[in-house]
């Protein structure tokens, strides 16, 4: 593959090509999340969580989506169960999250071991960091549960997963990676897109849906 001279220069200075690519992809992912929020109306857990989960999915490659979704769902399900189990003890916030995180990490460990027993070592072979990222997702989830209730927390988690999966397919799309490595300047377009998103005052797609029942009375 032919790189842009600038990319070649970066690589010559010792920056791994994978790092260069991921750093250049971050604006794309961030823009994607912003687009989903402002135009579609899908909220997810802010901008940090979906972006970082996207990269976590990428780190699970070659079976990124399959394992990633499994771990994600595992974290959410265990998080929910632990919340209900701990409810009656009426614990303060941080200790409660600490317990939740501990139980989730144990659960993940068990999943890895079981995976190993069934010769699915692909999962256990991935680096620890994407796993940790997934586990810390639980804090976001628990906090949302407390603030906005389980129902909304669940929806936001599903939305986060949706955006992350779309983001994953976007950054593992060969045409896009080639394009960015050949013409890294196109990243600057995301500024343009974000500026227009930042000034966008139209209704979101979800809002059209929300107000559909009264539209005929307007």
């Amino acid at each position, binding site marked *: 593959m032919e790189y842009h001279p600038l990319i070649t220069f970066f690589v010559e200075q010792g920056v791994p090509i994978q790092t260069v690519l991921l750093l250049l992809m971050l604006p794309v992912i961030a823009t994607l999340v912003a687009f989903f929020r*402002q135009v579609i*109306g899908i909220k997810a857990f802010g901008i940090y969580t979906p972006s970082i989960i996207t990269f976590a999915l990428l780190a699970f490659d070659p079976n990124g989506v399959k394992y990633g979704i499994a771990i994600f769902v595992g974290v959410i399900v265990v998080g929910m169960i632990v919340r209900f189990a701990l409810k009656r003890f*009426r614990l*303060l*916030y941080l200790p409660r999250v600490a317990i939740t995180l501990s139980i989730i990490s144990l659960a993940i460990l068990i999943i890895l071991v079981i995976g190993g027993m069934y010769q699915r070592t692909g999962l256990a072979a991935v680096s620890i960091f994407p796993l940790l990222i997934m586990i810390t997702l639980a804090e976001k989830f628990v*906090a949302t549960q*407390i*603030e*906005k209730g389980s129902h909304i927390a669940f929806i936001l988690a599903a939305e986060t997963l949706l955006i992350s999966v779309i983001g994953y397919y976007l950054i593992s799309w060969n045409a896009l990676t080639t394009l960015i490595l050949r013409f890294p300047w196109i990243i600057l377009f995301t500024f343009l897109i974000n500026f227009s998103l930042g*000034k*966008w*005052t*139209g*209704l*979101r797609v979800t*809002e*059209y849906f*929300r*107000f*559909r*029942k*009264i*539209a*005929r*009375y*307007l």
Partner: protein
Amino acid sequence: MFDFFKKSQGLLGMNARNLDYIRPSNRKRGMEIADSKLLCKRTLKKNNLGVPALIAKIENHEELEKFDFSTLPNSFALKPNRGFGGEGILVVYGRKKSTAPQSSPLNAHSSPSATPLPATKTTPSDSTNTPEKPIGENETNPFSENWVKADGSIVTVDDLKNHIRNILDGSFSLSNIPDIAFFEERLKLLKLFKPYAYKGIPDIRVIIYNRIPIMAMLRLPTKHSDGKANLQQGAIGVGIDLATGTTTTAILGKGHIIEYVPNTRLILSGIKIPYWKDVLRMAIDAQAISHLGFLGADIAIDRERGPVILELNARPGLSIQLANFSGLKSRLNRVKGLQVKTTERGMRVGMNLFGGEIEEEIEELSGKRVIGTIEKVKLIGKDGKEIEVEAKIDTGADSTAIDTELAKELGFAETLRIFDEKVAGRDIMQELTKAERELLFSSVPDLADTTSVQSSHGASYRPVVHIELVMDTLSIPARVSVIDRAHLEYPVIVGRKNLRKFLIDVNK
């Protein structure tokens, strides 16, 4: 489909709300007032607006340990200072003694503000039918300090302490910032609302922008919303006609259109809200005090005290549009840029512009528009110059007159100057014949005609110019006389000749 998108343009979405209204209008100080219920309460009270009375507040764990729960009245609401969406609010309706028979009055700890309640009753009914015992016989054992919630469940001191700890730790505040807990007087339900509301107190959300009430809805707690008047939690939202304070359309929860209170035959439209003008006035005043340009004021009506402000919202939700079957954006656009100096004026403008469900029916029948005695009118002058002003609609006047300054702004400065030159202070009507007058003024540019007007101030000879009047979206070509109206309240008076397509409602 295309029509649907076009119609939806009148709706206010999150993006537009944040960018066009909250960001430019709501300054930091206002946001602080809206975010802290205690600060809000203090500020409003200082300005003589009614708020629920504060009983006590607990700022930290140390204060919680020292707090004497026996000083609490029989009924109160426990709230987090920075809670949102009605979360973390605990309301008790009466005290319950563990040993006492259920029907005995529970006077032992009643403070002057609280009414004694039979423990079994969940609604604040009077206790006159239960025999009153001497207070001495009713001393409560300090170890059995229990209260009763709306659903009849018991709340112990330990429950309260735990709830307060959760509040202090920020369980109910945004991003878990440590918070303050406070006890507040429990409001008493208005008899009128009793059949409609499930357990909690209904409140009225009024959106105020630019000192003008824009939209309002009545929020009724339901069984599903657990007695909370919050649409997200499943309460009922009922739209209100601003002109009359009468309810119109209704939704349940996030957007299910309903006509009756679920499982009853109680129709939701046509409820006349008491103290309606006071509610609007309070909301407008609250906006002026809080400096929130775009505000959602939550006002409840107490059986004894009348309207009180519960809360101010710097980021009011958009569901109010669903309840009213109407878009906020189109309404906001109609009042943008209006200069409103007094509360009364703002209230009148809001009532005029955003009331009239019933009128629309009249309009359909008669083919005429119903307008009030004061209307926003757009004047289109020479070369398409546009000015928007408030005009007096006067069926006693024959024709329309506008102020000299306004005419100048509309591009008739030159016309007026030459006209004055030609008149040169003479009493034209007396001195010249019709033919002479026509000749004299024929060379004045853009002059449509001249006219002699008899008004309550005497006769005057005026130039007449051609402009376009736009009232209630209807455009009318008009010949208007120009006169100095600087000393009058409204710069424009619209007379009969230009009112043929309208019906005038003096109540508007």
